[in-house]
């Protein structure tokens, strides 16, 4: 039951993009088509889950064990950058078809702030948990996967809306980014309807 609450909370109530403002760059950048949005979401889900597990273990067994928690930011960003490279190399060898699908999006992920953001939240145990649950590796991983699903949901919904926007008659000054931001605002408003569910 508790895990279900974590999932609903992270996907709908505190959506990573629409209510916590992490990962806005890919949200605005690769949301012109539903296909690319799906590819980006898959890549993010994959890296986010892996990165959360690895950074959590590093935090517990390296940073806290040796009392050097102040190096967190430095270590995490290096680990994420290396991980993305590693995933790219492995995918290329093991599953060329998956690499074809995710390839272009992987390098972009290093600077996606939702990866580092979630890694820091989980490592510090400061993410939202239902009452009575403790922050540990399992809840952290469930939270990371749910966050990635929330990211995917927001991205795909937004891409669908933007595909329709091409047929709309938009005032000249609002063309491009401004209308995209207004659309995102309306989408965020829709997601606000979930607040209070969990």
């Amino acid at each position, binding site marked *: 039951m508790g895990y279900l609450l974590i999932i609903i909370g992270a996907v709908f109530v505190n959506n990573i993009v629409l209510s916590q403002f992490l990962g806005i*760059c890919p949200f605005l950048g690769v949301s012109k088509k539903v296909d690319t949005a799906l590819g980006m979401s898959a890549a993010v889900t994959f890296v986010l889950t892996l990165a959360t597990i690895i950074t959590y273990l590093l935090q517990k067994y390296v940073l806290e064990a040796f009392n050097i928690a102040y190096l967190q930011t430095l270590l995490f960003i*290096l680990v994420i950058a290396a991980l993305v490279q590693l995933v790219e190399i492995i995918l290329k060898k093991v599953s060329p078809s998956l690499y074809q699908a995710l390839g272009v999006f992987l390098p972009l992920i290093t600077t996606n702030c939702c990866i580092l953001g979630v890694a820091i939240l989980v490592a510090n145990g400061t993410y939202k948990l239902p009452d009575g649950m403790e922050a540990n590796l399992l809840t952290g991983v469930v939270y990371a996967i749910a966050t990635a699903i929330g990211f995917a949901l927001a991205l795909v919904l937004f891409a669908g809306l933007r595909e329709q926007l091409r047929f709309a008659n938009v005032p000249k000054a609002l063309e491009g*980014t401004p209308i995209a931001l*207004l659309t995102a605002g309306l989408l965020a408003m829709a997601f606000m309807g979930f607040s209070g569910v969990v």
Partner: protein
Amino acid sequence: MKSLKIILNGLIKENPTFVLLLGMCPTLGTTSSAINGMSMGLATTFVLICSNIVISLIKNLVPDKVRIPCYVVVIAAFVSVLQMCMEAYVPAIYETLGLFIPLIVVNCIVLGRAEAFAAKNNAWYSALDGIGIGLGFTFALTLLGAMRELLGTGKVFSLTLFPENYGALVFVLAPGAFIALGYLIAIVNKMRKA
């Protein structure tokens, strides 16, 4: 003369938020009030100036292939310094900005300026570029924060301009961030073309 030009370039012509559309996460996430927006802008400015200076000094020592990881390490080091200083001296602001302070590492503005400017120019000009771009970012964040605070609660920098009951609370919440920024960019677009 060139020095002034570099600073103005960052403030107006290449304003990171309104023109280059970089660093959107902190722009949306920390501008629920004018003071929050300004603190975030100044924090980013500090990292930007320091990292620009150091990167322009080490640019000839770093092999081309590994330059990005090296730049990221420099930036991350300054972010850690900033984090510790803020936690010690301004704990209240550190608490409100929260996650967005460590996330300056992945702010595209900082890495973008390192790659586009500091890696090609000397330390003095890089520092000026850091100041210009940083102040441009601070200006944009403060403006957006002030706009959201005013529309949402009727205050600017906690100074009451009209009673709170007339404000539209949605501007302080998440959707208001997107909408306010959308209209601000539209206004800037209109002004640039006119």
